């Protein structure tokens, strides 16, 4: 890690406050009683944003060589995308439920 490029601790506190603010937005959205699909999409987007900030700044990937990012994240995302093979069967069950 190249310590000279890192942020000051006060900046990290700001990042922590920002992350907590996103959590507050998530809670407010939850109690708006949005449709489940809209709420899920909103929560996943906000959680993804939080995760990206945490990876780049708290886990300090921003200050590592870019090869780390390009080795780790595309491979992990690829595995997680592959897990989407489950959804067609889940929606098959969902549709069977509606027909009952």
């Amino acid at each position, binding site marked *: 890690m190249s310590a000279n490029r890192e942020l000051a601790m006060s900046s990290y506190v700001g990042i922590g406050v920002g992350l907590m603010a996103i959590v507050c937005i998530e809670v407010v959205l939850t109690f708006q009683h949005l449709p489940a699909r809209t709420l899920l999409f909103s929560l996943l987007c906000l959680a993804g944003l939080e995760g990206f900030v945490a990876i780049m700044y708290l886990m300090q990937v921003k200050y590592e060589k870019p090869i780390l990012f390009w080795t780790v994240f595309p491979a992990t995302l690829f595995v997680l995308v592959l897990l989407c093979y489950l959804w067609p069967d889940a929606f098959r069950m969902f549709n069977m*439920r509606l027909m009952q």
Partner: protein
Amino acid sequence: MAVVTQHEALMEPSPYAMDKKKLGMWVFIVSDACTFGAFLFAYGYMRIGAPVWGTPFGLSSIVNGMVMTAVLLSSSLTMLAAVRAAQTSTKAKTNKWLGITMLLGAIFAALHLREWIRLIGEGWRLFHNPTGGATQFGACFFSVTGLHLTHVVTGVIALAFVARGFNQGRYDDSHVETAGLYWHFVDLVWMFVFPLMYLMNAH
């Protein structure tokens, strides 16, 4: 004739330009992220397929979850301070920040167990739904949050070992940094577990 005794002298430098321990931790984090991903996908699968899903979390549980999030986020910041202290300052300062991080981790675990005890008191179990709906909610909730709680408790124990080793001079700042990487990952996972397991199940 000069004899090379250090193996490192014969090896190419790592393209990642980082400590071996840290690179190993990244490999672990990738595998663990896939494990949590699989758990959350299985939860989504079961939730879509279940006819009626339990939504046991009221405002008090969500506020409890927000406090847990704040505690875990604060512990990430104190962990960063511990890494900084290990790199630049004294053992005492490093131990102080590691101690605060462990304390916050223990508080998180206690708050989590309080939520579990409340749910169990209401009749929720791994395979039982007290409202008569789908039984999978308990299985999903206790499995995912239990796996995360195990990571938190393991992290607190690991930090205690690192703090002890650092104090005795057996470990250096790279050990603290590697432990910190794990701790931030635990925080990162919670950022997905909280909205998916708590907020999506609020009534």
